[in-house]
């Protein structure tokens, strides 16, 4: 593309010369051509494409989720850097530095609230983004590896949240991190070694705080930036987002494209502004929780893992620890990683829920999971005592292997039955299984967060 040279600054004044050396182009481009040039020459904007397929601007394709995640990450960087000026990462001083932050630093409480709420929102948004990408078939070639990078980003967001969880060093933080890192011990072979490395010793203490602080404020932010860059670059290499279409509609090649500036950027700015406004509003009215200072001698009852690990903790109540913290997560991670590499019957890129059948099957799978999961939890809590009628077996087999084999077999049976009943493609079948597993995990998380009271007994939350 021919870009005309800048007007020579020879005959202008010094101020104008300096101004033009920084901003060679007009700040507000008026024509389409000028806008394209502006985008191309701007340091921050030039990683965006000049044009995007027009149909991908549709809000109901993306719900703005990926963009929201990026905005929240930036918000985390901004507020996190500020917090770093006040926070002291030692067991003795950490808690009081949070008190100083909240009571003496101007806007300290607000900044902490912003950091807290946008961190939690980020987990939720990234999860929804993952669902959006899956249900619009955006993992089909050429976007297979983008899915894998996305999973990496999701893990990073979880680790960022988890390492940040310890830092206030209150009772909530101390014991949530104790039980969460306690889970590591059950990983066969390297569990104890890994746990000791993560904690920097046998118990949570000053070494743990140093390690978590270093991870939280240096390692993870850098890794996030690198992986995010990779993620965005892959989107561009794939020619933008998937183009939404209805079932049966062909993919139009080549798609009609429109200029990124203003069409996409304007929409992004609107979504970002609304999001930031919501986060600020929440942060003004709701304070981030801060319990009593950490006391290693007194575990509160109940002690719960952070909400995003509550599903895992709920599983721990029902399965043998090796199954709950190692086998099941390993199976789930493998399934997630391999999802884009299944050989699918059709290319359902851009079609919400793959097909008409797929939609119906997804609804059935969701309802099935909504019934089966609470049912199993209640049965296990009140009825079954496998110790009695399977007493000849070791706990690993009785509470680990047997339930897992039954669950995997049940899910495979569900897959085959759904495929046969609807004579559906494997796109629809895999999607139904995915829906079933995701809804089950959501139910486990909800039960773990709201339905578990003292002694981890089932309670009714609204009383």
């Amino acid at each position, binding site marked *: 593309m021919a870009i005309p040279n800048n007007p020579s600054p020879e005959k202008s004044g010094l101020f104008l010369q300096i101004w033009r050396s920084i901003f060679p182009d007009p700040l507000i481009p008026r024509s389409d051509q000028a806008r394209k040039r502006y985008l191309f020459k701007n340091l921050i904007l030039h990683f965006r494409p000049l044009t995007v397929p027009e149909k991908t601007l549709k809000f109901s394709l993306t719900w703005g989720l990926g963009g929201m995640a990026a905005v929240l990450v930036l918000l985390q960087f901004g507020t996190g850097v500020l917090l770093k000026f006040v926070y002291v990462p030692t067991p003795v001083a950490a808690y009081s530095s949070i008190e100083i932050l909240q009571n003496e630093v101007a806007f300290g409480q607000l900044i902490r609230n912003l950091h807290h709420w946008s961190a939690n929102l980020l987990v939720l948004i990234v999860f929804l983004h993952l669902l959006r990408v899956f249900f619009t078939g955006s993992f089909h070639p050429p976007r297979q590896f983008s899915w894998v990078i996305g999973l990496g980003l999701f893990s990073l967001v979880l680790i960022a949240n988890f390492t940040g969880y310890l830092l206030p060093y209150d009772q909530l933080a101390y014991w949530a991190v*104790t039980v969460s890192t306690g889970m590591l011990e059950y990983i066969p072979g390297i569990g104890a070694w890994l746990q000791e490395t993560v904690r920097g010793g046998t118990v949570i203490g000053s070494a743990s705080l140093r390690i978590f602080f270093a991870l939280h404020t240096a390692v993870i932010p850098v890794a996030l930036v690198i992986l995010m860059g990779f993620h965005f670059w892959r989107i561009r290499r794939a020619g933008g987002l998937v183009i939404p279409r209805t079932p049966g509609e062909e993919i139009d090649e080549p798609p009609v494209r429109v200029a990124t500036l203003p069409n996409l950027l304007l929409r992004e700015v609107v979504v970002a502004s609304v999001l930031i406004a919501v986060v600020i509003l929440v942060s003004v009215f709701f304070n981030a929780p801060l319990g009593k200072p950490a006391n290693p001698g007194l*575990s509160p009852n109940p002690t719960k893992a952070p909400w995003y690990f509550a599903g895992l903790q709920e599983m721990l109540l029902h399965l043998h620890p090796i199954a709950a913290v190692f086998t099941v997560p390993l199976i789930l991670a493998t399934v997630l990683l391999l999802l884009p590499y299944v050989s699918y019957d059709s290319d359902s890129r851009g079609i919400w829920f793959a097909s008409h059948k797929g939609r119906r099957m997804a609804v059935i799978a969701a309802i099935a999971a909504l019934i089966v999961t609470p049912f199993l939890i209640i049965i296990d809590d009140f009825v079954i005592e496998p110790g009695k009628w399977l007493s000849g077996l070791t706990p690993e087999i009785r509470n680990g292997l047997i339930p897992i084999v039954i669950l995997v077999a049940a899910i495979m049976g569900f897959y085959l039955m759904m495929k046969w009943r609807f004579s559906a493609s494997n796109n629809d079948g895999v999607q139904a299984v995915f829906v079933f597993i995701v809804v089950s995990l959501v139910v486990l998380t909800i039960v773990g967060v709201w339905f578990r009271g003292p002694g981890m007994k089932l309670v009714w939350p609204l009383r």
Partner: protein
Amino acid sequence: MPNNTEETGMERRTSRRRSFLNWLWLGLGLVALAEIVWLVVSFLRPRKPRAKAGGFGSVIETGTVDSFATGTVTAFPRGKFYLSRLENGGFLALSRTCTHLGCTVPWFEKEKKFTCPCHASAFDITGDVINAPAPRALDVYRVFVENNVVKVDTSIRIRRTEFRKAQVTFPRKP
């Protein structure tokens, strides 16, 4: 760049040498990578905690044999353990860390058991599991009696699956 014509002997030898050197570089690169990983992991490994005298990690003097009644449990918060005196007069030093996920278990005198507040695991006075999900008995520390004083070595935590008589230390009969 070699074209598609037949390779001369010299070219073949050169290319073989080249591919050998390429493999060598690759191997060296992998060795260097392994070294860096090893260095980073060793750097990040926890150091041995320095025990303060009388604190956790050292040998702690708990008191004279007679100061502990049989069938009682005494907490030593600084040493992070409980001293159990069993009905038969023997001593056990129990770690206060639940073997399920690492919460601190309090002793309930009325019910004569340790109950974990996190997931309701329960242990009896010997540290044996009476209520799952805890997978094994509470860890123990070595107890020894010197000049009628009960001492506990908190430097090494001993894992065990269940309570056995051999774990109990008996004071010598006067």
